[in-house]
């Protein structure tokens, strides 16, 4: 949008952050008692809720089960009140189907599915409030939910968005920055090995800037992984205190 300065001269963004600063991340696991694993994550104003059921027997058609691995089934949906304009269909449209597909592929790479042949793991993610970085919030929340459910994974899967304005890469875009027409890259990373599980970029970017952009996103993801790790450890401490005596 013309007129909105995404990066001011002093280096401050629309919400007062610096170029490489992430938004405040708050998370909590075991939000729901009925599900096998659940997590709630807030990244700035974006709120995501993830619930994991499984591993359990393959529901529906038996033919979908694989003989040597578990099938991961994902559904991404947004609450109708999550966006500024009311959304009519929470899920089922093309964008949601695409996101569900990407989530499924991301976690198929990260979860040790060979340990659960012929079974199914369901991951359901819901966006309660959308303010940029929907996909990344989902991935982070789903990682925490999987950890809460006790499903073994290769590593935390952390995701973050990055943008590019006037030769400076920006980390963790909010909605105004994303829809401003500039570049936005979403990256899902396994921090310890540096493997990229998913890479998605829209809008034009010159090839020479690609390196810097990916690098900025990777650094942001590594920072996020520390936060997620802290949340998991804190939760474990709380639970162990309760069950100790």
């Amino acid at each position, binding site marked *: 949008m013309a007129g909105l300065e995404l990066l001011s001269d002093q280096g401050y963004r629309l919400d007062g952050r610096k170029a490489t600063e992430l938004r405040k991340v708050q998370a909590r696991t075991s939000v729901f008692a009925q599900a096998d694993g659940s997590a709630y994550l807030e990244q700035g104003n974006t709120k995501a809720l993830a619930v994991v059921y499984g591993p359990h027997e393959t529901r529906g058609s038996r033919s979908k089960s694989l003989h040597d691995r578990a099938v991961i089934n994902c559904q991404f949906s947004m609450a109708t009140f999550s966006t500024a304009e009311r959304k009519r269909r929470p899920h089922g449209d093309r964008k949601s189907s695409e996101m569900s597909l990407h989530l499924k592929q991301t976690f198929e790479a990260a979860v040790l599915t060979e340990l659960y042949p012929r079974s199914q793991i369901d991951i359901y993610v819901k966006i309660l409030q959308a303010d940029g970085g929907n996909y990344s919030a989902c991935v982070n929340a789903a990682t925490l939910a999987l950890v809460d459910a006790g499903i073994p994974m290769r590593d935390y899967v952390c995701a973050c968005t990055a943008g590019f304005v006037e030769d400076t890469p920006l980390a963790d875009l909010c909605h105004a920055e994303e829809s401003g027409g500039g570049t936005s890259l979403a990256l899902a990373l396994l921090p310890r090995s540096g493997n990229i599980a998913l*890479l998605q970029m829209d809008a034009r970017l010159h090839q020479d800037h690609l390196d810097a952009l990916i690098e900025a996103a990777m650094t942001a993801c590594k920072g996020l992984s520390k936060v997620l790790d802290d949340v998991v450890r804190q939760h474990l401490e709380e639970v162990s205190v309760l069950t100790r005596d």
Partner: protein
Amino acid sequence: MRDTPLSNCERRFLLKAIEEKKRLDGRQTYDYRNIKITFGTDYGCCIVELGRTRVLCQVSCELVPPKDSRPTEGIMFFNLELSPMASPAFEPNRQSELLVMLNRQLERCLRNSKCIDTESLCVVSGEKVWQIRVDVHVLNHDGNLMDAASIAAISALSHFRRPDVAIQGRDITVFSPEERDPIPLSIYHMPICVSFAFFLQGSYLLVDPCEQEERVKDGLLVIAMNKHREICSIQSSGGIMLLKDQVLRCSKIASVKVSEITELINKALENDKKIRKEGGKFGFAESMPKERITTLKREEAPVEMADVKETANEIVNRTETPTEVVSSPVLVAMGTAQVGEGIVNSWGLDEDEEDEPQTEDTKTDDVMVISDSEEEEVVILNEEAQKSTKLSKRK
């Protein structure tokens, strides 16, 4: 109808070949198949053949009221369909994962990159704008649908001409193509998708995978770029792990390929423009090659002839003489059929057969050709073997 699954044998073969940097059709790792772009008689219709993959794209336009959130911009609508004629695996009216992925990638590649100037599509702000509809149909699936679809879409958009409009106050007059020449769309740049398939946990990659290679792949990376080296979209899918250098390397390869393909598209557009101007025939019918055999030439193939004589003699010595010897064995060349000619009827004449003396030795050394075939060439092969049979008999 379900797709025939790939056997483990084929899978192992393909993966082993990829390990040794060989591909089924003999291409190199970074080679594209032959791309052929043809345009139809209408403006905005284009068929792209990428090897055996065939994709048809049609662009059409319509005047509609604009979206509320963007009253001064035109609307672009993309639709990709997997026609069941393309592959037995495609069923009509079924939203498969592949369809969703292709549609979204096409939308992201062409819409988000803003390759078309949508503001120029506005006729009356807030009331009437042009809606450009791009329909892509897959006619034959032999791998790499994404690239073919993006090439077809952008070629069709470049080829398309929309009707001219005149605005007088509140009246809008749309001119038909006869009244006024239609106007081409204003295209900023041509984004083209390049697909990289990864195999064996990301250690090997191939550009432009064919259908069988696609089946054994681990994951796919699609990079959409234009010839100015601007990346329009990157999408990795399939659950593979990538390293940053792999992505950067792929982007470099993609830039080279994209510039080649853009040149090809431009050349095809030029050709088409030239033909239309000169009044020559254009369209799909003209572009299909006439497959009529005008000459038939067989290539010479070397044959090992070192010990033919010895082996032939051996065979002749080993075999028994036939009970019945015909005066002139007629050996027919390929492509001819003879019914009821040449050999004596041997049905129901058992007693006579044995008594028949072998009087039918060739009286002459010439071979008599008993055939009514119209083919001028009746090649009698193996004259030497014939002569040696005669010799052996005489012995």
